[in-house]
């Protein structure tokens, strides 16, 4: 029901951005280590540090254009979609992180945190996913 959308311009070709999204060694350098492979049905695990190991499954692959996978099965239960569009000399990268539910285990934890005040929640999220 609720989702996050963020986009970022990167002054490199979609082919290079695609590699950073789909090659484990590069993915680990900006996000998390994991055995990702851009093949529909491929299951992989992302090591999110103190946030735990998150189970994922590739749902859709259009090389250098679109990559969609489930993220954090059993806790956050969401879907991540990356979309790459050529823009000028580079790439506009769109992220949609969809399917946040207030009644998922993590959603509940976040909401309980809100009862203790907004700064407390921010600190907790930072310390768990930072």
């Amino acid at each position, binding site marked *: *029901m*609720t989702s*996050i959308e*963020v*986009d*970022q*311009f*990167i*002054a*490199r070709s979609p082919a*290079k*951005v695609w*590699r*950073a*999204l789909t090659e484990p060694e*590069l993915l680990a*350098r*900006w*996000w998390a280590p994991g055995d990702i492979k851009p093949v529909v049905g491929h299951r992989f695990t992302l090591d999110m540090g103190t946030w735990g190991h998150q189970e994922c499954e590739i749902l859709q692959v259009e090389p250098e254009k679109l990559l969609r996978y489930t993220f954090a099965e059993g806790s956050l239960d969401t879907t991540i979609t990356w979309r790459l569009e050529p823009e000028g000399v580079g790439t506009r*990268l769109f*992220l949609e*992180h969809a399917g*946040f539910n*207030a*009644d998922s285990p993590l*959603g509940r934890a*976040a*909401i309980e945190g*809100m009862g203790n005040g*907004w700064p407390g*929640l*921010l600190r907790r*999220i*930072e310390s768990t*996913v*930072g």
Partner: protein
Amino acid sequence: MPDGDVFAALANPVRRQLLEALRAGPRAAGELAGQFALSRPTVSEHLAVLRTARLVREEPRGRHRYYHLEPVPLADVQDWLHPFEQYWRARLIALRGVVEGEDL
């Protein structure tokens, strides 16, 4: 549940489905009951919770009561996602650093 608790109102899957249905436009309680194969009293109870949370408002039209989506309190719900959004902005900047900084 405390009165007007948006999160508690949204925690129920039937109520989320009712809100989704109302995104298409105002509906009468009876229509909603038919769509979800629920009894009228059940739907009325859920609509009352949504109304208390100010997620919907009621409008009498003749013998029927129509329900409209009220978008404003949903902003509170987006608030709990805000840290995730901050998180992703930081990750995307890191990604840009990796891609632009390396000779890929």
